[in-house]
């Protein structure tokens, strides 16, 4: 593995050398044209700086300037909207899938269909493509996905003689067994402030909260699939079989450290958090497919794509950079030390598996890449996001925290949330059906 990494470095410096040679041979003509085209890239995701550095070291026609912005919903998106409005658009930005429809409806991003985004369609999971293809155009190039997996304390599972659950029914049985034997320990902690997690679980169960097939926003968070998810977790929380509290807050970290919480519903990007918050638990974790309702399916829980804002000065160069990050093994190699997020491009799955384990001793041996790769292929393709998910998630979080674990709490929360979302969208003029 070490030799492999050295290889990459050699390749990198070789490429830089070639680039320098090319630059030298271009000489005066290159300088006359003003040298490389400079583009700006706004993001907050881990690994962005590393990817940009590698790109700049291996390309002499385009120079990417990376600007760290606050996390999307923490102010980054707002900054992007305002930059476009002020006519100071960056050339390329990171947008998470739930926010793509809002960016499109506000005319903040331009279609990238004409910049060759379609060439990547075949190597992307169908559901990931559906996240960025809206109204007949493509608006973002997926580069990260986050299929759900179940992370569990393999050491304690073995010590306590627990079987790995494969269905949600078995998950409950295992949780009850554990509770019976060790009253102060739970099978998992469920983030009660994380609306995207609940959405992902409904997604896994086959729901589609925002269906646009009929030409209007058909909002439906109260279908049988979503409600059964809600009922299931209400019961689990009410019966004290899982903890419902913010993930990686002090309480959860204390529970993890003391072995009082044995698992969590996760996605590959979360491994970074895990290794940062509980480094002492290295080697005790393993990944398994998320328990299923029937058949095997995972929901998606995060991920993002590259979008080109309206008014960007260099959309073609921006897309060339985006395509490089989304297709190049070199980009994966550059990013894995900083980020454990999974690439969207299925051609890169194997390379990512090798690289992410080589670069992160904490991750090696957990078996995440294999589980996540299988999960990525099983995510239901029908799911769509609404046109104001930043607000939607904030409202769903409020509904969730207040009601999770009360009899019928989450179920009511989904009903209230749906009504609320419908009202908000109608107020702003969207065509909504329920």
């Amino acid at each position, binding site marked *: 593995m070490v030799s492999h990494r050295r290889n990459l470095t050699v390749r990198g410096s070789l490429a830089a050398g070639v680039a320098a040679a090319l630059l030298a041979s271009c000489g005066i003509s290159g300088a006359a044209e003003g040298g490389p085209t400079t583009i700006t890239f706004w993001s907050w995701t881990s690994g962005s700086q590393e990817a940009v550095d590698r790109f700049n070291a291996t390309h002499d026609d385009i120079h990417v300037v990376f600007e760290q912005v606050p996390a999307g919903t923490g*102010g980054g998106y707002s900054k992007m909207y305002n930059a476009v409005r002020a006519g100071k658009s960056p050339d390329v930005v990171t947008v998470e899938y739930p926010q793509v429809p809002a960016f499109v409806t506000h005319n903040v991003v331009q279609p990238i269909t004409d910049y060759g985004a379609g060439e990547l369609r075949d190597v992307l999971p169908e559901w990931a493509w559906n996240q960025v293809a809206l109204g007949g155009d493509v608006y973002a190039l997926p580069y990260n996905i986050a299929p759900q997996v179940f992370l569990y304390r393999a050491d304690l599972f073995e010590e306590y003689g627990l079987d790995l659950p494969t269905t949600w029914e078995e998950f409950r049985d295992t949780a009850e067994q554990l509770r019976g034997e060790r009253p102060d320990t739970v099978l998992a902690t469920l983030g*009660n402030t994380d609306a995207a997690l609940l959405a992902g679980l409904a997604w896994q169960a086959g729901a589609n909260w925002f269906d646009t097939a009929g030409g209007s*926003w058909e909002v439906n968070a109260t279908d049988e699939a979503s409600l059964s998810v809600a009922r299931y977790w209400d019961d689990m929380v009410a019966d004290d079989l899982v903890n419902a*509290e913010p993930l990686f*807050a002090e309480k959860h970290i204390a529970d993890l450290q003391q072995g009082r919480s044995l698992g969590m519903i996760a996605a590959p990007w979360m491994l970074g958090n895990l290794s940062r918050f509980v480094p002492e638990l290295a080697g005790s974790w393993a990944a398994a497919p998320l328990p299923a309702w029937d058949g095997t399916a995972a929901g998606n829980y995060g991920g993002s794509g590259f979008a080109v804002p309206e008014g960007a000065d260099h959309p073609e160069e921006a897309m060339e950079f985006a395509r490089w990050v989304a297709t190049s093994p070199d980009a994966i190699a550059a990013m894995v030390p900083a980020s454990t997020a999974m690439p969207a491009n299925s051609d890169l799955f194997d390379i990512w598996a090798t690289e992410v384990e080589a670069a992160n001793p904490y991750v090696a041996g957990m078996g995440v890449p294999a589980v996540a790769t299988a999960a990525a292929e099983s995510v239901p393709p029908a799911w769509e996001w609404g*046109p104001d998910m930043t607000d939607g998630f904030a409202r769903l979080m409020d509904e969730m925290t207040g009601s999770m674990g009360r009899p019928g709490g989450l179920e009511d929360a989904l009903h209230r949330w749906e009504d609320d979302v419908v009202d908000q969208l109608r107020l*702003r*003029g969207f*065509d909504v059906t329920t």
Partner: protein
Amino acid sequence: MASTTSPPRSRIRRQRRNGVLLLLGPFFLLFALTYILPLFYAVGLSFFRERFSGLGWGGPELVFAWFDNYTRALTDPDFLSGVGRVLLYGLIFVPLLVVLAIVLALLLDNALTYGRRFFQTLLFLPHIVPGLIASLIWLYLYTPELSPIVDAFSALGWDIDFLGGNNVMFSLVNIAVWGALGFNVVLIFVGLQAVPRTTIDAARIDGAGEFRIAFNVKLPQVLPTVLVATLFTIIGSLQLYTEPMILRTSGESPISNTWTPNMLAYSSAFNSNDYHYAATVSVLIAVLAGVLSFAVTRFANRRALR
């Protein structure tokens, strides 16, 4: 001849005017640029709205909305309950803070000199801690299973939930009082220092006790200072934002994303990208603050006249 010994009147006036301009100009320039102008801009924004149609892929259309945004706000349960909450919060917080500040300032004014400096510093210290940090510290102290305070109460057989239900309002007031008390004590204390010692001595000679001196001699003379402190506190409570925002992240409280009007404005602008509605909510809060300030001033003036 007179002009050689003293400059003409008009020149003096001009010089004085230049002096005033020089001293006040920068303030008014900045005040206009950062306060008056944005205020008008916000009012302007509040009369427009962005309207989407169909699925919305075509983008929004900017339309003149007359008072649509105001009607929306005044019928928006999020806005109305938010206003109700900050008013209730103010109703608890303002009297509590002002009374505590007066009592502590009077005590400091009376206390022996060596103790005074110590307590002054001690009381003022929390004011140096930014509201954000204070909220994080208090959140830790409020969170069950983490907080030594909750543990201590629990050991005494009292299971108290600082974040749940209606308690969260008092928990917020507690953070605010902790943070603002020192500053207000110092404010009033400085006022007390300016009270002429002769009036106090006169009262003492007339046989007034310490309590009587404090409440009948000192307090009436610092009422203007108390009034200013009250005004600032009222306006501050209408703008409640940081503390509930932090407590919300605990996942243990009923605080929602639009719990106060300022949170609603923030959410409209930065989550929904609806600056028009955010501006409307902000204008309404400014109007409310103006009305309340006016009422307090009028009330105080009438009392002063009597």
